[in-house]
């Protein structure tokens, strides 16, 4: 089934930004052994906005963490571009995250001690790279923060803070941006803005974004939605609408109840 699901994607997207092959993640051992990801195979196309959906405990966050090099994998393979993640040391993983990956988290995304601009350039500072001024201005303009770059996070609204986080994730032109419930703490208007920027960064700036969410509306901003349940990819949807996503979700719920 997973193979069948991913086949059309590969046809449509000539280039792959990240790929999981038979990715397995197991927590604990013996009686407390929990299989969070059960041989997941999935690809994320370059220049695409992919949403990962699934109910709580479906393994969607775990999948993201493993793909992003935040967590080790128990089996199978995870690749970012040409880099195989399994077997990398902590130091190598850190370097990989620093150079190839951008992050947007649900909350606590920014350092309260740094102003907006410093937060945006933080990954570059860590990597010891000089920011590309043109690119930086482009991003800042896109997320609409031009007037607020000297503000500290505490002087920004939640939506603005998350826009700073998006700008930060894009600042280093990473291979791929992972967003973990980026709108979880936002009201619907701010959430819509943030999602709009994520979509724009893909469509206009050619970036690659993978977003974990449980909100059908958020998922509808993506080009493609991958559904996860019980640690396995169960389905996927291209050019989703909120209604279509909701329908699929209902289907899982129904399945979940009957099985």
């Amino acid at each position, binding site marked *: 089934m997973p193979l069948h699901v991913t086949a059309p994607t590969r046809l449509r997207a000539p280039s792959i930004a990240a790929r999981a092959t038979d990715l397995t993640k197991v927590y604990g051992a013996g009686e407390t052994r929990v299989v969070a990801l059960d041989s997941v195979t999935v690809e994320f196309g370059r220049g695409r906005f992919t949403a990962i959906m699934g109910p709580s405990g479906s393994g969607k*966050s775990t999948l993201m*963490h493993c793909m*992003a090099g*935040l*967590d080790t994998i128990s089996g199978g393979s995870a690749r970012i571009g040409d880099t195989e993640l399994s077997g990398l040391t*902590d*130091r190598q993983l*850190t*370097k990989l*995250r*620093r*150079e190839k*990956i*951008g*992050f947007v*988290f*649900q*909350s*606590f*995304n920014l*350092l*309260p*001690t*740094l102003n907006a601009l410093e937060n945006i350039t*933080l*990954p570059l*500072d*860590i*990597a*010891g790279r000089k920011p590309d001024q043109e690119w930086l201005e482009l991003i800042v303009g896109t997320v609409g923060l031009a007037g607020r770059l000297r503000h500290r996070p*505490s002087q920004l609204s939640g939506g603005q803070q998350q826009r700073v986080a998006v700008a*930060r994730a894009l600042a280093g032109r990473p291979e791929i941006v992972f967003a973990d419930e980026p709108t*979880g*703490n936002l009201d619907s208007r701010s959430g819509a803005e943030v999602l709009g920027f994520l979509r724009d960064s893909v469509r206009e700036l050619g970036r690659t974004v993978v977003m974990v969410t449980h909100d059908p509306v958020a998922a509808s901003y993506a080009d493609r939605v991958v559904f996860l349940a019980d640690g396995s990819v169960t389905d996927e949807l291209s050019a989703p609408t909120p209604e279509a996503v909701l329908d699929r979700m209902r289907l899982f719920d129904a399945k979940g109840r009957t099985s």
Partner: protein
Amino acid sequence: MLRTALRNVLAHKARLIMTALAVLLGVAFVSGTLVFADTTANAFRNASARSLQGVAVSVRADQASTAPDSAGGVAGKTTGALDTALVRKISRLPGVDAVRPTVHGQATLAGRDGRPVNADATGQNLATNYLPGKDGKDSHFPMKEGRGPASEDELALDSKTAAKAGYRIGDTVRLATDGPTLSKKLVGIVALDDPWGAAGGTLVLFDTRTAQKLFHHPGQFDEITVAARTGTDESSLTAQVQALLPKEGARATSGAELAAEQSAQIAESTGYLTKTLLVFAGIALFVGVFLIANTFTMLIAQRSREIALLRAIGASRRQVIRSVLIEAALLGLVASAGGFALGLGIATAMRPLLNTTGAELPEGPLVITPSAPLASLAVGVAITVLAAWLPSRKAAKIAPVAALTSVDLAPPARALRVRNVLGTLLAGAGVLVMLHVSTLKGTKESNLLAAMLGGVLTLGGVIVLAPLLSRPLITLAGKVTTRFFGVSGKLAKENALRNPRRTAATASALMIGLALITGLTVGAHSAQHAVAKEATAGLTADYKVNYSSARGLDADSVDKVARVPGVAAAAPITMAQLNTRGRSAVITGTDPKAFGKVARLDFRAGSLHDIGPGRIAVSDEFARRAGLQIGATLDAELGGGMAGSKAAKRKLTVVGIYAKAPTVDQALGTRADVLPYSVTKQFDNLLIKADRGRTGGVERAIRASLDDSPLLQVRSQEQLVKDNNEKVNTVLSMTYGLLGMAVVIAVLGVVNTLAMSVFDRTREIGMLRAIGLDRSGIRQMVRLESVVIALFGAVLGIGTGIFLAWAAGGLTRTSMREYETVLPWDRLGTFLVLALMTGVLAAIWPARRAARLNMLRSIQPS
């Protein structure tokens, strides 16, 4: 609320551990001091009781007030009220069992190697008479080897003295009391179990006749102790003895009174030591207050939602405050109990420790009075509760609605305005007082109090102002860390600046210790400098020769020394009172030619060679005060001032004026003009210039050319300065040790703050790790924050310390003419480096924790 408090203490064990340690150490210092004081006082009392055992009455002769007597005895010891006849009369009184007449004096020994033993501490080089009883032995001095001295050629030593001087039975011992050098045969070594011989001195025993001859007159004594038969009333016996005494010159005291007198003395001297130690313990506890207050502030911030929940379900503000204070009290109680236990260890270790510095405290069992544990627990609990009081009020201000917000709100940065105004007032007042102190002279009590007040105000002001000062200073330090360590350095700076109160409190703890250490170091260094300058300024002499007793050098000594091969010049120095034109001055008499070789005087008019019989030079200062000019003739009154020396009128001509110098007095004349009018009619000292390149070995030759008495001191100028420096350094090291506890607690405070900060910033650290900061970067960030805080504290402390030392230094200028503040840059540099290292060390554990945080768990919303 008690249950909540108890649960909180148990739940936050790990986070409270540094706080508990701080209280524990502070209390250990207090309880250690208290128990040590009780133990030492008890040991002294026991020792004095042992030495007073069997003493029913003690008769002591008063100090004689008159100067040299005609009988040829030694000047001014005691009256001759106690004589053999009196001893006989007392022994015939009913109830008297035994009478012990004694003679006391001082004797300095030459060691087997010829060098004086313990020559500097003349007051402790005691001598007395060996008094054999009917069995031929003196029960006071149990014989260890040999026998008691029986003739004028014999003596006995106590075992410690014999070991120190390297003598064995049968050796000939050289010694001096006050006059010429004596040689006697060592016939006995006694074991001494008496506080008398303590304190690092020496003890020599003569037979009674010899002792009387040396220290008194034949047949006369300094003290008579009376032992009573059992059942005799001490006070009535005392009255009977008193009745036998002449009206003046002696006094009888009962054994009980004597014991009371001694214990009062003991209480006073141990009380002084205890007070000093308690001051340092107090400083350590005060430093602990910052740590405790920081901990509770942070705990309450972390727990704000929990507290808001308590408030929401109906707890009153008072209940919240009480719960925090109970938590503090429980913590204080447990930590103080531990502290008391550790204090017992400290008290036990204190005696051997102090004894290594030569204190020789008597041995005795550990004495724990009920007041020591009670006071320790009370102090520990009170300090903890007091320090937690302000944070507890903050806890009470948390609104119940805070429980409902889902996001952690950073505590609003409250305005520091009130604090800054208060700090400015305090520091301003402190600085003003200290500026006033810097104009004062002399160590009068009022001056010292003013200096103390100014010091406390200044320190307090700096502590209150520390959050304000933290911004510019840490920003400056941050520039350096950012420059060298990139993003970790920048984040470290921002973290240190994030909560100025927390940073300030942490740094203040370190500042207090360093301010005191720096102040003392600068003061001591300046004093050493002043002494060195005074000793050598204008002096080119290689050696100074003098007697350690009041004795002077004979007139022919200068010629003897001048003939020693290797001696280029020997200038005798004598002094006399000079009164003229209503002014009083001191004139130095010397040999101008030789003096020119041992000292450098800057003549404004005339020269050293112009000085001759009836022709003197004066200092510019004295010339100005007395209105003297070159060629002026003055009617001077020479001599006088002391009993026994008569003033004489002389006509003197001023032939030279020199710039005031520490080596000479207000006037300078020939030895012939001055010597007859000096108090001793002898030279005070000789200043000696050795031939170039011949300084080694000359010292022994000079000794040999004179009488080589153990009292004779031949010291090089270097030695003088070195001796003084050593003394100052010993005191300084001890103070460093005592302040060490405060510094240790301050370092715990840095560890505590960092650990708590790491806990507070768990999610931030997780996020940083996620976006690519590696573990070593995280470690570096925590480490640099620690270093920045430590350096901030160090800079504040060293700065304040230098200012206080400069302002208070003037008070010593009356006793040290050359005193000026000299900064010991090497030491100050060392302090800074140590602070830096402290920062690195304090960060080890928190930095490791931060680097090992589980990244995934950190970034996920709880």
